[in-house]
């Protein structure tokens, strides 16, 4: 029952992804490995679309992944499952907001969590980099100079420089990537 599986996976993602939309990515990559729903290359596409459309990144990703896996109903169910844990927790702590925030144990747990989240998102970045650096159908396991997509690697470094230097809106860089890809027939 694919709908139930989607609900469980996205509920788990919502419950354990702490610190915003990017924190959902490690869970999505784990899903790509465990289920035949979508590939890692497709995930990169979904990130691009989610970053260039309005709404929180995590919610957009859930809708897209759910839609791709099981149609519109899948998209709706995945999104609702993703936000449900947060909604329940907020309702539970809304009355004692200040107490929760100042609780020493809560703060300690999060001091340990934050660096781990950075490590997990760095892992997601390696998948995205792999997808960008290798020609279609090849990956890190078949590494050789011939499997590298040199044009895309050059484009990556140019854009990386631009992103760090000017910090413009993500859509701008995504649009530049699309235009360069079309003009030079990547």
């Amino acid at each position: 029952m694919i709908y139930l599986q989607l609900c469980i996976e996205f509920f788990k993602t919502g419950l354990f992804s702490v610190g915003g939309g990017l924190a959902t990515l490690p869970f999505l990559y784990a899903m790509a490995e465990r289920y035949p729903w979508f590939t890692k290359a497709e995930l990169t596409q979904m990130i691009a679309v989610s970053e260039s459309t309005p709404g929180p990144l995590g919610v957009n990703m859930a809708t897209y992944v759910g839609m791709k896996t099981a149609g519109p109903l899948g998209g709706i169910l995945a999104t609702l499952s993703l936000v449900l844990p947060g909604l329940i927790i907020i309702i539970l702590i809304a009355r004692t907001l200040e107490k929760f925030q100042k609780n020493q144990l809560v703060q300690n747990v999060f001091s340990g969590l934050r660096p781990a989240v950075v490590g997990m998102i760095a892992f997601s970045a390696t998948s995205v980099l792999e997808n960008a650096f290798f020609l279609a159908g090849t990956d890190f396991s078949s590494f050789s100079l011939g499997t590298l997509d040199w044009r895309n690697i050059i484009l990556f470094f140019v854009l990386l420089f631009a992103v760090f230097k000017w910090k413009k809106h993500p859509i701008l860089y995504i649009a530049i990537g699309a235009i360069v890809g079309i003009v030079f027939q990547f």
Partner: protein
Amino acid sequence: MKDYFELLAAFFRIGAFTFGGGYAMLPMLERELILKHKWSTMEELMDYFAVGQCTPGTIAVNTASFIGYKRKKVPGAIIATLGVILPSLIIIIILAAILQQVSDYPVVQSAFRGISAAVAALIVQSVWGMGKSGVKNLLGVILMILSFYFIFFLKVNPVWIVLGAGGMGAFAYSEIGKKAFKKLLTPFGKEESK
């Protein structure tokens, strides 16, 4: 009834006009919640952000749940949350259907090839930014490397990493842990000042 509709409409607008989520949505929240409806103050909004950072889920959704609850208890929280996710649902479902049909065209594939380089650059920058604000001492460096190692090389489920790192934090920053791990917990750049 009118109150619920107002909540739904306000958060629908917030969902529809913010890109990226997180702090990017602060200006929109400010306009809708503080200036227009006077449902919240700037201080409260900052509190919601702080709590949103340390509860599961996206910050946009958590802020919506908070404000909704404050206005109309549980039904309000649900309505506001639905409001903020509705634009995403509508836009992405339509877009995904279109993209599935056109994604075989060579032009679209070329575009997505170039886009993959852009997404990679954006993510590297996000990780760099998060590292700067999230890794503040030697223990942080160790936890970051360990979590990367476990998920990348050992393919451990991220759930276990979240639970493990949370547990490590609870222990290391407790009174006993603070004495045992003094060196690991000294914030970077503060070694000399002591």
